[in-house]
């Protein structure tokens, strides 16, 4: 069983809240998951290899900065999902009073 302070830390880190029921579940699971993750501790040879971030180790392709499709002047790409006001996306305030 993990201490609830760890769950509080996870919530803060990930900016979300677990319900009371979810907290009980994660408290009982997290120890087992961390135990599984710790399986990697004793693998031999880890120190001498580079991390493999991506299986396709190719350079990021670049192309000319030209639009492929028509420019979305009517904000069609956002209209179904964002709140628009005078053509701008409305968002919560990011700075204090």
């Amino acid at each position, binding site marked *: 069983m993990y201490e609830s302070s760890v769950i509080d*830390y*996870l*919530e803060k*880190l*990930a*900016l*979300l*809240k*677990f319900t009371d029921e*979810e907290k009980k*579940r*994660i408290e009982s*699971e*997290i120890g*087992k*998951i961390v135990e*599984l*993750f*710790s*399986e*990697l*501790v004793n*693998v031999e*040879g*880890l120190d001498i*290899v*580079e*991390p*493999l*971030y*991506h*299986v*396709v180790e*190719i350079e*990021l*392709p670049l*192309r000319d900065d030209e639009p*492929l499709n028509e420019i979305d002047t009517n904000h*069609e*790409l*956002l*209209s*179904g*999902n*964002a*709140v628009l006001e005078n053509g701008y*996306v*409305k*968002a*919560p*305030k*990011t700075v*204090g009073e």
Partner: protein
Amino acid sequence: MVNNVSYKYISMPIYKLLQEFKTDPMKVFDYLEHVYRVIESVETKIKAFITLMPQDAVFRRVETLIKESKGKIDSMKLFGIPIAVKDVISTKGIRTTCASRMLENYIPPYNATVIERLINEGSIIIGKTNMDEFAMGSTTETSAFYPTRNPWDLSRVPGGSSGGSAAAVSSGEAPIALGSDTGGSIRNPAAFCGIYGLKPTYGLVSRYGLIAYASSMDQIGPMARNTIDLAILLSIIAGHDPKDSTSLPIGSKNYVALVKELVYKEPKLRIGIIKELFENSDENVKVKAYKVVDKLCTYHECLTVSLPYGKQIVAAYYIIAMAEASSNLARFDGVRYGLKVPFENKSWEEVYLEVRTKGFGYEVKKRVALGAYILSVGYRDMYYIRALKFRRILKETFDKIFRSVDVVVSPTMPILPPKLGEFFEDPIKIYLADINTVIANLIGIPAISIPVDFYNGLPIAIQIMSKQLTEEILLYLSMQLEEKTGFRNIIAEVH
């Protein structure tokens, strides 16, 4: 069996349907009529779809298709063929939810590249299929809406995360489907539902429009009731896409022609049997899987290969997947996408927290939170970097294995399809059941799940993996097995 449905028609492979449709395009309506009768009868029990296109809308689409395609029907590779699409793949104008409250009302303004390609070949999307929320799960039980049931036994799960796609194909609701596979999400449900499923080489199929879970491992792939149908679908979706920067700079291949050529020439291959993955499987699975491998070994040369890692593979997979997920799912901020909550007089942080708390289900929250933890100061080196280093060691291990054999074989899943709720108390157990499938995603190689037999009415499948970009070899062996086992075009009788 559903009344007034010709099962001979419903179970027909798409390469035969195509011939019929091209001779008489009106037959598309006929076939769809039967498909919708099946759906009407079984869908309330199976719940394979999140969004099902109404029959009249689909009929109108076919009318338009026939008009627009005059003169080009013969060259279209999927003319009139209905397809079920996993609800993680963006479809313009059709709700795409990822089985999450977060995207419950999200209607994409554009098509994924794979969808564009299907439409160009004349395919008809009949619905968006259920899945684990954001593809995080192996049973389709983490869907925010409802679980899907296994058509072979309604008390059991269909596997996941592409469980809806697999259940739709195996119950006759659709002849083919698209799934996505990050750690086995195509192969696991294909195995549990008794159909064929293929995870392509990383970078072979465009991910443009696939809502990301773990970008370095996600791939879209085909699901079908026989090998040739699988090859037809793969040929269409594979090939370079400039809109996906991880797409490999290569064209598609005609996998159907390649498979037929290989079946004709019948080259003898060296097959590596991964001993540990057989030995760690349930007895029933192991016995049946060994038996079918024997069928391959009467012709090909088989040798035992050893994999010196077990739980470490699963650990590395979940660390990388959770880390990438925590970053990918940050985009659902309720502003550009995601659940809408009122944000008058609330700060960004308050809104963001509320959106994520209400929008994500338990499994997603858990993985996002653990992903953030894994990437946080002090733990990044301990978990994330270590997992990535292990990933290289695993890749080198398989590079070495593939110097002595052409392919490796194992059961697809070490267990039979579990009952609904069976793994609720012990999530580690279900994570560990992914051991056979996550390997291909970690190292980017192709893998196929081939249904081979039944045990007590439940399907059993084997998995074959090969070197990058040798999908045709997997399809060749699949075809050979299909001939030997007769496991093709089988539809589950839903009770």
